């Protein structure tokens, strides 16, 4: 899912830097106001937790393993705006320290995984769960929130890849950046997520939320907001 350097042209990565910057600034301002002096250690904690979620390989049927991005569960546990900052910080550290995702693509990766994914996950959870107290419904809502969040993120990545041949071509008509047109990039990104990675994300979101509901229901932001 992490877009490396070289796949997106400046026509795409510059506006996405701008869009991510706007969301990040709003999130920082909002949380600084809400959390007052505590916002720095709190957000660092959320970011570290977001990074650590990706360290857990989950066994899936067929003998293979995969890991979740975690933006969905962070949005449910700590709120979507906290997730925007937490996952953005992780994207920056991953790109700079581990070479996971490109430096020019930080804006695009943040937009896909740190902006779109938490809001979609949070929105889907609220939509399906509503004010229900049924554990079954909450579990389904959690699974679908993780599933939808990462699928939308993959869809956006597919679109960003797919529009590159339309935006930048050489004199001979050869694409200068990601070479696959929309009709290839979009299904390639979305289908593999619908069938595998979104299931992992959904399962992690559901399992973790269920654990918290059973043991520490008071810490779940998505449910606190409901009660408020």
């Amino acid at each position, binding site marked *: 899912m992490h877009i490396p350097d070289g796949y997106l042209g400046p026509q795409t990565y510059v506006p996405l830097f701008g869009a991510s910057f706007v969301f990040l600034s709003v999130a920082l301002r909002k949380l600084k106001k809400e959390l007052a002096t505590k*916002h720095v250690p709190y957000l660092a904690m959320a970011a*570290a937790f977001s990074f650590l979620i990706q360290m857990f*390989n989950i066994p899936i049927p067929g003998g293979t393993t995969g890991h979740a991005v975690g933006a969905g569960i962070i949005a449910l546990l700590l709120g979507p705006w906290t997730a925007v900052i937490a996952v953005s910080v992780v994207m920056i550290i991953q790109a700079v320290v581990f070479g996971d995702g490109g430096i020019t693509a930080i804006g695009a990766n943040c937009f896909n995984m740190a902006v779109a994914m938490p809001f979609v996950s949070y929105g889907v959870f609220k939509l399906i769960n509503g004010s229900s107290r049924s554990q079954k419904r909450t579990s389904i809502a959690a699974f679908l929130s993780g599933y939808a969040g990462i699928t939308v993120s993959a869809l956006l990545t597919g679109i960003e890849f797919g529009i590159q041949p339309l935006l930048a071509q050489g004199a001979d008509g*050869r694409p200068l*950046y990601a070479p696959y047109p929309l009709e290839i990039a979009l299904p390639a990104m979305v289908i593999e997520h619908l069938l595998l990675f979104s299931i992992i994300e959904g399962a*992690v979101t559901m399992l973790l939320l269920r654990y918290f509901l059973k043991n520490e229901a008071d*810490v779940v932001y998505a449910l606190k907001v409901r009660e408020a």
Partner: protein
Amino acid sequence: MENKIPSFLIARSSAAPLAEGRGRLRISFIEKSIQHLAGVINIGHAQWESASRDAFLQKIDARVKVLFLLFYVVIISLKRDLVSESLIAGLIFMLALTSRVDLMDLYKRVLFWGFVFGFLIAFPSAFNVVTQGEIIFPVLNLEKSHTFWIYHIPQEIGITREGSLGVLMLTSRVMNSLALSFLVLATTSLPEIIRALKVLRVPDSFLMIITLTFKYIFIFTKTVEDMFLAKKSRLAVHTGNAESRRWIAGRLAFIFRRTRMRCEEIFKAMLSRGFADEVRIYKFSRLAALDWSAGICLFIAGVIFLWI
């Protein structure tokens, strides 16, 4: 003299797989997680060690290196020909050489990730099914061409000149970007890089969040690694996938609790040291003559790369 150490202690390291090949003790998720975590810790340590060497790029101010990295990553993304990419690759190699970076380690990582993210992903686009053009390497000849919805499969399938040029271009661009960022990282400690982001007017509070996150990550990565090793050492029989997933959910929740507790402790420590909601990162010292000259040389070289 006979070895008195019990055989089970010298047979394998704690991280080696158990019951290899029998297929009864399926713990690949533990092995993969341990490898993943060990990789994170290794990268951190290797970077710290190489950034503290007394060599060319290590002596340059982090602000110059961060601006150099950003400027050159943009140049790499703008260049459209292989000659320019090769020249940039040459410059990066020279800088790595003069900075006494472990070249084998640097280029092993660059080649691996460049192959995965550059070549492997882009390779199918070399075929005329994706990129039209002159076929230079025919692979398959079908009886007739096929059209399915918006997809068209031509009668003759092969690698085109235009497609292979595109793959080469993309691979070299990915490899150059990786080499550049790994080089800057190998010659600069992360706290210095984060501090240097101040020149881009990134707010101090955001830089502080990144710094704290980086520290938390290393503390908790070790905790998570210990968790996996403890789980592995206790495993004697096969555990089902569902049971493993429940265990992971429990451990993730535990980590969440630990990070929250650490956050409270850090906040109290901050308050006891007089923190009053104002994050201030220490100011940099003035740039030295070496920083200015290196910065100007790299800038001129960059402009030449943009111009050619």
